[in-house]
């Protein structure tokens, strides 16, 4: 939602195809290719128009950008899928490189930290963009994590297949977050956020988690 509003505010006309559901990554990563393909085909058909596709989650963007060509190999929709993949942008990447936004901070001074999701970092190559946006905000102090690159332990079905290891991973991650002294952790991936905020909440930590789109919108909104 916030992502759409951010884009609209920058004067972008946003189209949200109501038929969309999921990129197919959960099944793909679990080894169920046929099921992944079935869902992915549906998405490819929906996004035929030759305009940029902006995703507010690095993980989904990564799936479409990196893995569609392989998933669709030999499929009748292969060409369309590759085209779709080439038009995929992660939200912050789009904001920085395409829209070249210049954000004006309207909020109170606050210290935050940034968790980069594995897939936006390593599949989309988005590393500095979100931090660049946060640094544009005058009253926001960004304290980076000690192990920024390390996975939070979500990994989709991993969290339920290997719950103990997943728990240990998010424990290290939330400790790292708390150690920064930030009052909020901002991230661009909903899966990571669900994992991290769920843990912070269970620990009754005062650190909150927020999606970057929501955070940026809140800080820069006129109201």
């Amino acid at each position, binding site marked *: *939602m916030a992502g*759409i509003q951010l884009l609209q505010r920058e004067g972008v*006309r*946003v*189209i*949200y*195809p*109501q*038929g969309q*559901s*999921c990129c*197919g990554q*959960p*099944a*793909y*990563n*679990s*080894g*169920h*290719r*046929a*099921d*992944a393909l*079935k*869902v992915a*085909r*549906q998405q490819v058909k929906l996004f035929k128009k030759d305009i940029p596709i902006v995703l507010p989650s690095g993980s989904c963007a990564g799936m479409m950008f990196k893995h569609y060509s*392989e998933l669709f190999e030999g499929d009748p929709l292969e060409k369309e899928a590759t085209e779709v993949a080439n038009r995929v942008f992660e939200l912050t990447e789009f904001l920085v490189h395409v829209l070249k936004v210049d954000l004006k901070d309207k909020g109170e001074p606050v210290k935050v930290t940034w968790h980069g999701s*594995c*897939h936006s970092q*390593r*599949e989309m190559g988005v590393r500095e963009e979100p931090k660049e946006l946060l640094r544009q905000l005058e009253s926001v102090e960004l304290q980076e994590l000690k*192990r920024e*690159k*390390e*996975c939070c*332990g*979500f*990994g989709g*079905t*991993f*969290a*339920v297949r*290997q*719950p*103990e*290891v*997943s*728990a*240990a*991973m*998010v*424990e*290290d991650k939330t400790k790292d977050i708390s150690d920064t002294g930030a009052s909020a952790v901002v991230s661009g991936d909903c899966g990571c956020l669900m*994992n991290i*905020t*769920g*843990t912070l*909440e*269970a620990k009754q930590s005062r650190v909150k988690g927020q999606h970057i789109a929501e955070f940026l919108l809140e800080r820069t909104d006129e109201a």
Partner: protein
Amino acid sequence: MKPEGTFRQRAKEALADKELRGNFRRAMDSLMVKRANQFSDVDEWTRLRSLGEAVRKRTLEKLPDLLEKLETNCKKNGIQVHWAETTDEANQIILAILQRRGAKKVVKGKSMVSEEMHLNAFLGEHGITALEADLGEYIVQLAEQMPSHIIMPAIHLNRRQIADLFKKKIDGFEYTESAVEMTAAAREVLRREFSEADAGLSGVNMAVAETGTIVLVENEGNGRMVTTVPPVHIAVTGIDKIVENLEDVTPILSLLPRSATGQDITTYVNMISSPRKEGEKDGPEEVHLVLLDNGRTRIHADPETRQTLQCIRCGACMNHCPVYTKVGGHAYGGVYPGPIGKILTPQIEGIEPYGDLTSASTLCNACVEICPVKIPIAQMLVRLRNEAATGCPESSVKEAGVKKSTVEDMVWKGWSTSHSSPAAYSMMTAVLGMTGNMMPKSAPMLKEWTSVRAKPKFAKKSLHRMVKKLGVDDE
């Protein structure tokens, strides 16, 4: 070999050991920094790594020819070459060499392949003592354990634990936690063993086809000892550790130590091309090279899985793995832990005993990012999950399809149906919005989730509906 329990059970045990977790976290944090310092020049890293990949890919492309060439050149140099399809055959070959020489005691340099063969136990059954000489391996052998890391076998133990062990196992050892003094004590013991041993056994980092040369890299000197002092030297290697020529050695010589431990080069690069020649005063009279298949030809059969064999065993993928750094090496239950173990072990030993390793990953790609020869480990994990879950009959992967589960298949079927039809999807999200928050914490999957986390909240209204209300265009 069947491991005990599942990865999940072993990991759970490891996680409960706070000391162990501390040992790994500390060690891996520091190794990651050391490696990063080596590759701060992005251009150099990119080009060197592409070269490393190219060299390994070319080797695998020409593998049968190169193996023949290696054999020819080794023989020309006087090195005896043996071929083994299974670990059992390899063990028998080595036993026969040792028995012919009447050998009773063997000193060993580090060799992961010999771990794969469970060589020490095998020789023990035949009255031959095999003594590990790499300090880490020596410690692990004293502790009657398996290595927990392919480069640093005893990394799971701290100095107090090692001091206790030495006190128990080494005669005359005065208890001390000083690494220097413990190292000196081991040196003392092993020096005697080197000079008395009847044979030396080593692994191989690279075998050069063009020259018939065995290349070993190491820091301690035990590798030089076991290949120089005893009258017989036996080197064991997987058939994958070949390079075409001497020039190919150079990029790997750079990538390997820098990735592994952040050193420019290991203390020793030891290149052996023949047994002792006429007039030479030392060096073994016999040098043997044992080439082991053990499933590698099967891995080689398929172009995608073949990439597994590009590995130069630097161990960097372990150091950078968020799962490995939490649970350590023993949780993997096999010889090769960490990301490389997750793809190699199930392919060598089979999906049945080790397929669950493939689920022990979030596919975070940390390993893929740093692998010096660009093995797409995450992609391979997905492939193996796919093989385990669906298994096509022509698959070259050992025991493909054994993890096929009807229940899981049905769940994914249901998922793909609801997610590929807009109507079904909108109904499902509506229902979840209404009922999701009423689910008890103990519902399946939620139970695992909420062990350390608060219950996730399902939005009352789906994003689709909110967006519609906002008036965002649909087409």
